[in-house]
């Protein structure tokens, strides 16, 4: 991990409110694992004060320059405009200077190399699943991706996932794209069909909670990627903790989302606390 003082290559709206940003980052790709994230500094001046965490969508190289210079390496993030920081980000342009800390955190464990893998992504939670899908497929796994969103606007990168060789299943709350209904209903059906699958999920907390219940009931292994408010991203501030399984007031277990996570094996988390803590993160500065 490293602090990149770098610049934006491109920043485009890909669906209403969703943006893809490519950022120049030499040497980033070889260090990055699926499920890791970056701390992005929106601009040099205030506000916002703190960096914003974003999952790594993918890394890659731009085509080589015609003047024979080596191809440029980039990291790509996908973000949804939700508040002050992401609003400013939406106004950034190619060439604008930004800072990026990463790759950070513990990503998905892809060591189990065989069998069915089911990925469940809700809205912006699709982001870390792209690199994951790529790695799983490279490992020889069969990957099915259940994409959920409130409306069609929340579904993106379908073609790119399919190009990797992923079978995609789309569901939206309003039926504006794919099946009408919750992505978790699709998951239940798939698990009946593939009872030995391993599940990986990222998305809003209520969705993750439901995915956890379903997987626990089916005794299927699950890894989830969580979001918590973060100040440092490197384990120094202790602001981003979640309660681990078996946490009690007398025998507390707090795990840093930024270093132990953001990806956790679901059995190591205290799901009752996650449900109730109302840690919606966001909010007006």
């Amino acid at each position, binding site marked *: 991990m490293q602090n990149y003082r770098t610049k934006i290559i491109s920043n485009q709206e890909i669906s209403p409110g969703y943006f893809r940003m490519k950022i120049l980052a030499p040497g980033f790709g070889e260090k990055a694992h699926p499920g890791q994230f970056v701390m992005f500094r929106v601009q040099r001046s205030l506000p916002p004060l703190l960096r914003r965490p974003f999952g790594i969508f993918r890394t890659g190289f731009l085509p080589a320059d015609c003047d024979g210079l080596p191809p440029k390496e980039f990291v790509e993030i996908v973000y949804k405009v939700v508040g002050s920081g992401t609003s400013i980000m939406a106004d950034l342009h190619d060439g604008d200077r930004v800072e990026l800390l990463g790759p950070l955190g513990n990503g998905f464990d892809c060591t189990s190399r065989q069998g069915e893998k089911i990925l469940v992504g809700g809205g912006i939670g699709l982001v870390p699943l792209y690199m994951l899908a790529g790695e799983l497929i490279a490992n020889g796994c069969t990957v099915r991706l259940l994409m959920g969103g409130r409306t069609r606007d929340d579904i993106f990168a379908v073609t790119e996932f399919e190009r990797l060789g992923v079978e995609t299943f789309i569901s939206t709350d309003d039926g504006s794209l794919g099946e009408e209904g919750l992505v978790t209903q699709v998951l239940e059906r798939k698990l009946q069909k593939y009872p030995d699958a391993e599940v990986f999920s990222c998305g809003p907390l209520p969705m993750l909670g439901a995915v956890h219940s379903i997987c626990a009931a089916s005794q299927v292994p699950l890894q989830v990627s969580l979001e918590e408010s973060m100040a440092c991203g490197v384990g*120094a*501030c202790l602001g981003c903790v979640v309660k681990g399984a078996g946490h009690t007031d007398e025998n507390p277990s707090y795990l840093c989302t930024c270093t132990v996570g953001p990806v956790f094996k679901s059995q190591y988390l205290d799901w009752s606390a996650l449900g109730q*803590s109302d840690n919606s993160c966001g909010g007006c500065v």
Partner: protein
Amino acid sequence: MSEQNKANIKRPNLGVEIAGIKLRNPVMPASGTFGYGEEYAPFLDMEKIGAIVTKGLSLKPKAGNPTPRIAETVSGMLNAIGLQNVGIDAFIKHKMPYLRTVNTPVIANFFGNTLEEYGEVARRLNDIPEIAAAELNISCPNVKQGGIVFGTDPQAASEVVTLVRKNLQKPLIVKLTPNVTDITVVARAVEEAGADAISCINTLTGMSVDVHTRKPRIANTTGGLSGPAIRPVAVRMVHQVVQAVSVPVIGIGGIARPMDALEFLIVGATAVQVGTANFVDPTAMLTIIDGIEEFCIDEGIDDIHQLIGSLKL
């Protein structure tokens, strides 16, 4: 100034001494914003900064508060980490090995839940030869006296410092809270009780509400406000404390840029600590050190002591 001119110029002496320990420059992290040092090792050369200050240590491991623990505010942040830390034993076992490899003085920040605990941690710190000094955080509630914070009551502050001073065989820095009517009263009390240096300020108590959920944005209801927003309050208090005591003062509060650090040095701080800014830019301290050096060169200052306390009133 051109690069060439720079090369020709003698580099100013930035070395300072705090409570008997020599620092290569006056810039160090603020406790709780730099972990146990190792967390930031990938980002900056630990042998370039003046000292390393650890997260606050207690006798037993401390779990800290429920979440959310942090929230951003306008040019600042609130935190209520609740002093989560591994405890002194795990610190010695798991964190000291890294710190021993670094040729930079280590300052251990610590606290207790009771008077006795403060004393006990102080004693335990004596056994760690590589700890150069201890920074005593007296911003914790004094459980026995109905939860009043040690550091807000000159009497209680004096008691805890006296006890720690008796138990500690290392230089003692006492860190003051800004949440008081007159910080000079507490400063004088801890000086008399044996503090070798004073650091200030800790965070200002603040609160923020999510208007949609109507809940505080920090689970603990209130949290400590830090960051650039509090700097004017910090500069004022450091100025007051410098006038009130004769031990060296370490200035803390909202330092993010070289000129922020310079403000504190000019009002008389012998050194400064950088807190929240580390989160924003892990290399902030290096930029600040370089900026101080450049300022000295530009102003024809060859020793930083010519700058310290040079405020014109």
